[in-house]
């Protein structure tokens, strides 16, 4: 974990309520795809945890949806402004079990962390399939970006206005894959857990206090004991997940 100041390079809308922010700063603490950062915002007490979409030595890219006060403040920020960010939080995805044909499933605002993961898996020579799930055509983002990485991309929409009609699990049915990685709303994660024919990893969300393991605000029960979403998570293995409801 590292605390440092980042400068906003760009902050633009991808859809009505999803924004892409690129920042420059010290990214040395980020070690894996699927980790998150925790952002201090003026006028708000707690930091806001946001997943990392992509990063390199000098830049950090986050893609976030405006859902409350914190993300609203972020959406109004301009290039040149600075943010106090804790980086390198959470475990991130483990690439070692991917096999040669992993499938990545992202639902809505769960799509962003799949991007750096896809990049890393392709760099390892894997044949990567990506299923991006949205409610409707106007909400779609990053389809081209994944295609440009060289992924086999399927887009699903619940209302059928674009791509395959249905859920990410609809597209998963007749796909051939060695392992899965996913991030999205909990009902989607549950559906993927049930529908998947291989082992895999899924990333979870929870309201957090600190984001670095100190407050026990985001604990969950798993088949392998109590875990902190921010520290031992947010990525859990399929085999350890305990659905409580």
């Amino acid at each position, binding site marked *: *974990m590292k605390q440092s100041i980042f400068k906003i390079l760009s902050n633009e809308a991808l859809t009505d309520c999803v924004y892409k922010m690129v920042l420059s700063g010290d990214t040395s603490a980020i070690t894996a795809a699927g980790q998150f950062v925790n952002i201090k915002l003026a006028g708000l007490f707690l930091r806001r945890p946001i997943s990392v979409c992509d990063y390199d030595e000098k830049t950090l890219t986050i893609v976030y949806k405006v859902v409350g006060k914190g993300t609203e403040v972020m959406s109004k920020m301009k290039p040149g402004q600075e943010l106090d960010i804790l980086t390198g939080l959470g475990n991130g995805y483990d690439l070692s079990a991917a096999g040669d044909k992993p499938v990545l499933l992202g639902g809505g605002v769960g799509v962003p962390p799949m991007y750096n993961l896809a990049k890393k898996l392709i760099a390892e020579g894997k044949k990567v399939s990506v299923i991006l799930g949205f409610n409707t055509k106007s909400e779609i983002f990053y389809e081209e970006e994944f295609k440009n990485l060289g992924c086999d991309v399927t887009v699903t929409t619940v209302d059928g206005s674009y791509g395959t009609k249905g859920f990410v699990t609809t597209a998963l049915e007749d796909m051939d894959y060695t392992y899965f990685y996913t991030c999205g709303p909990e009902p989607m994660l549950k559906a993927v857990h049930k529908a998947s024919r291989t082992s895999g990893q899924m990333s979870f969300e*929870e309201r957090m*206090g*600190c984001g670095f393991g*100190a*407050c026990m*605000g985001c*604990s969950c029960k798993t088949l392998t004991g*109590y875990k902190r979403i921010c520290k031992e998570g947010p990525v859990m293995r399929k085999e350890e997940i305990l659905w409580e409801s």
Partner: protein
Amino acid sequence: MGKLNVNLCGIQLSNPVIPASGTFGYGYEFAELYDINELGTFSFKGTTKDPRFGNPTPRIAECPNGMINAVGLQNPGVEKVISEELPKLAKCFHKPVMANVSGFSVEDYAYTCEKLDKEAQVGWLEVNVSCPNVHGGGMSFGTQPEAAAEVTRAVKAVTTKPVIIKLSPNVTDIVSIAKACEDAGADGISLINTLLGMRIDLRTRKPVIANKMGGFSGSAIFPVAVRMVYQVANAVKIPVVGMGGVSSAEDVIEMMLAGATAVEVGAANLVNPYICRDIIRDLPEVMAKYRIDSLEEIIGGVK
């Protein structure tokens, strides 16, 4: 440079800054960030007789200048704290640590305190009779003078180290409870724990916190904390540890002027993990600005 050291119940602290229980885990998350031996000490995560998962999530809510938590005393239980957490801590922290203890019965408190009292690393026992997030225990012992005194007596009977009773602000007369603890043999008082609070989500029309209510902390509660520290410090002869919304060197000095011998920092650790280190580094300059030679001399400076 001004003197930062204070004496808390017979043990010297190199400075009065103490991360508060529940915001600092068992120390080692922070030890990865800086040398936690810079701290006066810290109060570790509230420990109970048996392991606890705590409350369902969400356990955290944003508030103006603060937050609500309803963690519910998640901890591995006293046996594991002694067998696993303390040995891990010994590698990165070489000062006496403050052991924070909670319970659900007088016997629970005595059992857990007796075990921790035997540990060489433990300097003080901070007995939490003020947790707002558990039912049938915690705060219920801290809202009546007689119950708080009973816990104090039971703990004092089985321990040798200084016993500091941590009080709840969710009472009508904090002074009577503090005095009851002093009369029962407490070596110190710490306050304030969190204020009972609640937030409602307008969209779902449900409480933000799964447990509905939780403990409100953060800079918003600082004036309430200063007031209660002042009231208690003027009513008891034993040392008072002040806490509640402290987030700067100036706040530490204000708490000490109100009567605190040492000062705990809570919610601020969650927002800025370096805050305690920064406060300690800022203290000499702020002391010089207000012409303070020694922090010990300003304790209770406001009458």
